[in-house]
Each structure stands twice: as C-alpha cells, then as structure tokens.
C-alpha cells in the first residue's frame, strides 16, 4: 500500500516535471505587445552602425567643432582632448598600443569613426546628455577626428563622409565570440 502510494506520487512528480519542460519549450505570452509606428521607432532609434546606418541629416566642420568642444567638452577631456582624471583621453597619444603605457585614443585604438558620433550624440556631455544638436555632434566628431590626424582641418563631416574615415586600428580587434565560440 505504502509502496503504491510512493509510486503514485512519483508518477505525479514526473508528469509535473514533464509538463514544466514542455511549458518552457513552448512558452507563450499573452500577446500584449502594441504595434509600434514607424515614427515611434525612428524617434527612439539613434544607434549608428560602422557602415553609416542610422546617421542623421546635418553636418559639422572642424572649426565649428572646436567651438563646441571648448564650451561643452573641455571641462573633462581637457584642451586638445588629452583627457584628465575625470574624462577619457581622446587624442594626443604619444605611446603605441604595444608600449608599457598604451594610450587608447580615438586615433590609436577606436576601430570605427561612427562610434565617436554615436557616443557623443547619445551620452555626452555627461552633465546635459542629449542636449547637442545633430550638427553639433557632427562638428565635435570632426574636431576629434582632426585632433587625431584622421581628417584635414578643412574637412566637413556628415552621413556620407563619416563612414569613409579610415581608422588606423580597424583591424586591431580579435572577435573572440565569433572566432572561438559557437555557443551550441
């Protein structure tokens, strides 16, 4: 009798575990998502890709960027982008990446110029993030690329010129996940 009871409850446990597994595999939500409009998506989507996808209209020059930089950015990143205790070094590297004191500036380390625009527009300046216009963000990008000797002093940066800026360290990254991991 007792044996039967145990056997019986074991069966129930096994069934319950089985149901749980099936549930996890085919788990469905109640379908409460709301259709998002193209405008809603466009307003939120500010991601910029290395090929230029996501770059907005607008433009900025090196000289315009210098003005914006010296009012909005210089407090943390210092004159000429050399960085400080509170802001990344962005330019002015003296040392190579293979040295004992590597300087991971935009010119020495960053693989894509588009990332510079993306992070300026989405995250900077730290005290008033999101306050720069697209033109300002293009201009500061231009100034920083110029400080890193990546573009000419007369260059103008916009959605067609930015992805074309050749970054010296573009091939400096080993994609560990893609190369070695398959995850399955």
């Amino acid at each position: 009798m007792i044996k039967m009871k145990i056997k019986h409850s074991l069966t129930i446990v096994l069934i319950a575990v089985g149901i749980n597994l099936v549930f996890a595999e085919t788990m469905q939500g109640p379908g409460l998502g709301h259709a998002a409009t193209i405008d809603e998506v466009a307003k939120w989507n500010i991601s910029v890709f290395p090929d230029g996808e996501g770059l907005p209209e607008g433009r900025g020059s090196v000289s315009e960027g210098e003005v914006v930089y010296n009012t909005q950015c210089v407090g943390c990143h210092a004159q000429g982008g050399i960085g400080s205790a509170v802001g990344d070094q962005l330019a002015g590297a003296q040392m190579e990446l293979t040295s004992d004191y590597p300087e991971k500036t935009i010119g020495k380390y960053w693989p894509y110029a588009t990332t510079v625009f993306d992070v300026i527009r989405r995250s900077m300046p730290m005290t008033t993030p999101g306050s720069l216009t697209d033109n300002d963000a293009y201009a500061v990008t231009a100034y920083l690329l110029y400080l890193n000797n990546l573009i000419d002093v007369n260059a103008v940066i916009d959605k067609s010129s930015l992805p074309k800026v050749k970054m010296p360290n573009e091939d400096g990254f080993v994609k560990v996940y893609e190369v070695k991991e398959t995850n399955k």
Partner: protein
Amino acid sequence: MTDTKHNKEFEYVAGNGLLDRRLFLKRGIQFGTITALASTVTQLLQAETETAFNSARPPWMTQPGKPFSLYGKPSEFEDDVVRFPTQNESVLGNGVSWSPLHLMEGTITPNGLHFERHHNGIPQIDPAKHKLLIHGMVKQDLFFRMEDLYRYPMQSKICFIECGGNSNAGWNSSPSRSEAGYFNGMASNSEWTGVPLKVLLAEAGLKSSAKWLIAEGADAFNMQMSIPIEKAMDDAFLAIYQNGEKIRPEQGYPLRLIVPGWEGVLNVKWLRRLMITDRPVMARNETSRYTELQPDGKARQFTFFIEAKSLITSPSANMLLKQPGLYQITGLAWSGRGKIKKVDISADDGKTWAEAELQQPVLDRAFTRFRLPWQWNGKKTVIKSRAMDETGYVQPERTELIKKRGKHGFYHYNAITNWQIDEDGYVSHVYDKNENQTLSDNSIDSSWD
C-alpha cells in the same frame, strides 16, 4: 580558539594544517574568531561589554523591544557592512560600488549590497511611464508597457553578475591593499525573476536575417550593447524581481536584461529598447571599452563569458587571526560556463592542495560557497583557492594569466588571489612569490568612465 589535545587527533588533508572538510560535521568544534582590526572605540566599549556579558538580564531584556517596521533594516551593529563606492569626482553617478564580499556568508547577495556600475547615475523611473520597444529585423515592431510585462509567464534563476572590470587592480604591479570585496566585489549573486526574452521575440517574430540584438538602457548615458541573438533565444530574460522584490533602482528598475554567465555590462539595466539586427552596432562600450588590449597590440573583443574564478573571503586582507588554532577558510567560486566542479585550497603557498567542501546545491552560473577547516600553527604562510568548473577549466595563477594576456587587458581578471598571514595573524594581499613586487605604483592603466 581550540583545545590543543584535540588537535593531535586531526587528520590533515594537505600541508600546513588543512583539515578534512567533513571535520566540522563530525565534531562540535569551536572555530577561532577572525576580526577586523580593533578600533579605539571598540576598546573603550570593552568595559560596558563585560558588564552586559556578566549580567543576568542585559539591557535589552529589561524593557520592551522596538515595534514593527514597514521595511526591515540590518542591525545598527552591522553598519560597517556596506558597499564601497569609487566614483568620478565630477560626475558622481559615474563609477562603481563594490560589494563587501569579505563581510558576507552564504551565496545570496542582499539587494542593498549588490555591486553597482553606473555610467551616468541611477535614473528614477516611474514604471507607469516606462516602455520597452522591440524593433528591427522582426515581423512586427512592438512596444510593451510594464503593466503588460507583469502579465507574462515568468521564470527565476539564481545567478551571479560580474562586471568585466572586476578585480582589475590585479593587473597593477603591486597588490591592492583593499579588503577582498573592495577590489573583487564587482560580482554579486541574486535570484532574478522575469520574462524569458524568447517569448517576446517570438511575439514580434524574428526574421531569418536576425543575428544580433542591441540592448539599450533608459539612463542618462543611454547605454547600448550588442548581444548575439542565440543568447537571447537561449536563456536571456527580462528581470522584474530580484530576491523576491522588485529590482532596486540601482539594479535597473523596472526592467533589466539578464544574460546568465556573461559579463555584467551586457546585463543592460533600465532596459527600454531591443533592436534586432544582422550585425553588432560597435558601441563605445564594445570597442573603446570592455575590450582587452593584448601585448601584441591587438585587442580581444566580444569576450562575453566570465571564466571560472574563486576567492577566499575569510580570512582575507586586513583581517586578524587572534591566535593560532582552528579556523574555517571560506570563500566564493563561480563560472560563466556552468557549475563549479571543485575548489582546491592551499595553506602552504601552493605546495599542496586539498579539496574544499562545496555548499549544496551547486548551481549553474551561480556563486558557490566553499569551506574548509584549517589549523593555523601561528607561522607566516600564504593561503589561496583555485576553482575548476564543469568544462574542466582551471583558474590560473596571476603570473600565468599575465603571461597569456599581458598587463593592459584591464577586463576579465580571474587569477588566483593569495592571502599572506604573518606571525601576528595579520592578513594581507601578496602576489606570487616568484614575482618582483613593488610597493610604488598602485594605479590601473585605465579609469572608470
């Protein structure tokens, strides 16, 4: 404190006093006390303490206790068990806050002590005004209100989150002098509960071109990170609860992406947007940061997995062993690739090792507590722990790690930590003995912004 007569009967399992891990189950052994260095205040209170000890009814038994509270707090006598923030001087919300691993036991991190890493402060989000957008390579772009998400089927997982930059002081040329948690405590362990991401992705309908997911937070930094879609379809989920209560604001309230076993920065807090793409976005935090510069000038990128690591939390740096005798060595081990298989402990600077007892159950990609009794003979020595996970990966010695990765990787430091105990019982952090140790430069080559 212990009886020396008993000590003669102990069975040693490795050099310099390491004892059988089942010892404390067999006997009613009293372990020695390990204390932080005594303060002057503590000494002044000594007399008062003696009185309470010897009194038939100490003061708290002679009057009614305090009434109920709406939300409980730790005892006032535990007010030193706190996080340790190190932040950007001009942007106070930019920095990290270390979890006091050396002052905790068990495996679950209390919510108020979970480590923090913010790029520009903690947003105070009204869940009624928060929504999640899923768009890109899906059949239907969708947004979800929090009230919608609360109705979805939920799952729980106990797992650790470790910042990719945890223990980065280990790259320094001289050992950190901080307490164990205050340079290794950017790792914490919680039970997270929320909605499996694949349920929401299925609702939006992934296109066959979908390969990556770009997760973005609603903080002032508006941080974004790229994550392979197979992780999203495997075990990633959107956490709403942490250890039974809604996630704390500093942990991503009201919604946080959890990618079990993968580096902390990918567990995007204050989640508001998931963009499905065929390639990574190459965000600032996956190019200029969270990449590991190697000696050849190349950098490792998309190093998602947290490799196996362990750390003795007690005795550990800046603690004091009051006298020779029996102590319990205890610590934490974890791996982003699965379960911890075993943890070895050495009490003679790596000459001999013994296997520690693992607290059960050992969980996949979660903190695993290990313990081993140890008879300290009062002589100077070095103790250390070494984890192995279920893939067979063994935690490296520091010299080994540096030989492989150089000193400028900044992220993913998982080497063995050595604690030296001197004749006075004082515990300090030392590097491998064959390494030239300087006491000068204690700065890491990259800052926290």
